């Protein structure tokens, strides 16, 4: 499977970020709801995305991960606490902190190429240089032949790749990917993980990758943030000290990866139990799956 992803010649590779940024959430609380009914979705949440590292955030669905993505992107402002990019407080959306959404957000009325050029055009930077970069990026993600197609004419995997190209052309300081491969079939998902992993390793751009899939998180990340159930907070930080470049097949059978996986599973299980006790029905599925898994591995 891994041979399908072409890691590219030097010409096709994307440029390495010379001075990667770091992003910090400092004591962030976000309340949602009307006046007296307001409840915290994120509570006293602090973590740092280290420069040039890929941090994966994992936690049960509906635990407030997307809210954290919106806070980092600047669509939401924290009720308390701060989001700091290289020490500067974040107050509004900007191409410096690019968010890639769960379902594709390519403009359906623009071609693949026009979508990639959307950011430069908006910032009045659509010049020879960015146009050439757009072509290069399309080539890099294997969409050169599809530059004049509209998003609805592309497959799910192609759409996600076009979206990666549309983000990368803006040279964001931080990229946030909110379950970007959700809704793809299993094969395409693996392919996309490898594509993304290769792109990250080439660029070395500070990134936050939000997912519910442990294997995906371990394969991609330098560091895992395991989140609590609602309200979201970092429950555990695990360093994924696996060598790069990584090969999906090798990584998933390595002993170290399994250790990390068990560690992550145990924490998630505890969280699910707590959440289940608190009346969250969704957690029951996880608890049951965990129990079955223990039975088969023992």
């Amino acid at each position: 499977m891994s041979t399908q992803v072409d890691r590219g010649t030097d010409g096709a590779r994307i440029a390495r970020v010379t001075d990667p940024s770091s992003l910090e959430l400092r004591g962030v609380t976000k309340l949602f709801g009307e006046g007296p009914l307001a409840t915290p979705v994120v509570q006293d949440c602090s973590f740092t995305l280290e420069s040039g590292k890929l941090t994966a955030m994992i936690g049960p669905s509906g635990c407030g991960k997307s809210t954290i993505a919106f806070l980092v992107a600047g669509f939401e402002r924290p009720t308390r606490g701060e989001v700091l990019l290289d020490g500067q407080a974040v107050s509004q959306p900007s191409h410096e902190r690019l968010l890639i959404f769960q379902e594709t957000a390519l403009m359906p009325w623009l071609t693949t190429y026009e979508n990639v050029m959307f950011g430069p055009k908006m910032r009045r930077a659509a010049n020879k240089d960015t146009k050439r970069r757009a072509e290069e990026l399309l080539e890099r993600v294997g969409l050169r032949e599809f530059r004049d197609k509209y998003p609805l004419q592309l497959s799910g995997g192609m759409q996600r790749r076009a979206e990666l190209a549309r983000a990368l052309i803006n040279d964001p300081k931080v990229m946030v990917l909110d379950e970007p491969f959700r809704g793809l079939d299993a094969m395409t998902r693996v392919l996309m993980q490898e594509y993304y992993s290769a792109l990250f390793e080439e660029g070395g751009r500070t990134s936050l990758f939000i997912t519910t899939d442990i294997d995906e998180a371990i394969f991609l990340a330098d560091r895992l943030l395991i989140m609590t159930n609602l309200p979201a907070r970092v429950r555990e930080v695990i360093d994924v000290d696996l060598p790069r470049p990584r090969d999906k097949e090798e990584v998933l059978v390595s002993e170290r990866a399994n250790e990390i996986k068990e560690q992550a599973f145990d924490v998630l299980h505890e969280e699910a139990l707590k959440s289940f006790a608190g009346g969250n029905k969704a957690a029951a599925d996880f608890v049951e799956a965990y129990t079955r898994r223990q039975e088969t591995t023992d």
Partner: protein
Amino acid sequence: MATQRAAARTAPSSPALPDDGSVGTQPGPADPQEGAVKRELFKYRLRKWLFSPRPFLMLIGFAAFLGGWYLLVDVLGVWRFGTLPGLVEVVTEWTAREPAYGVSLFTSEYYTHIWVSLRRILLAFFAALALGIPLGLFLGWSTRFREFSFPVFELFRPIPILAWVPLAIIMFASDEAPVIFLTFLAAFFATALNTLLGVQSIDREYMRAAFCLGSSSRQVFRHVVVPGALPFIFTGLQIAMGVAWFSLVAGEMVAGKFGLGYLINSSYTTTRYPTIIIGMITLGAIGFLSSAIIRLVGNRLMVYRARAMA
């Protein structure tokens, strides 16, 4: 693979397979052959249509209608059908060089009526478009603007167009303006409302993505809201064209001089019954054509939708 990439870079138009093994559509033909391919495709589709049962079913449908008319009115004259103008009478009148009741394909009066109605429709329709689309866009875009103007809009919208007739005549002391005003009003409400719905139908993710990519509010309006609302706007224009013809005929019947609605009504009062039918069928044909033109323009402006369905 490396050499293939290098070769592909030096010759950007050379065809190459997508290197990820993904299954997709044909590469986009951006070469001069595209025109030829399109013509071939058109010929192929025309031939396929001609040799399919569809044109015959269509003809059978028309034949059944005309046959039924002929049988019920001309031949049998049963029940009240005997009072209607018959098929033969209408066709003879319509195609006569010297029509008995004054209006046929060969009289200039016929074309005067068509032209007058068309001119009123076009004026009213484009005025509705020019005012309704911006109003709808702003209603959808600005919460504050919506809060102060939408309740008023919603109060006026349900008033049936016929209820506006007296006011229109009082307000515009001419033959032409009241009819155009009534036609405009109907089309305007349909256009504005559908444009508003169009803006509201846009997925928020597109706007968020645009802000993320560095757009200003104005740019989001221009590059996301307008194209995003376009499918609904064209649905609105189709509806607007329909209600415009409806209001036009109503207006012409009460307040107009000339026009197809006036022709139908005046033929009735002067008992020129075949002319009524000529006016009606003409309205049907022009109404159908005007909708088709809007569809055509819409498909041209929203190529991405047509492509996605192909």
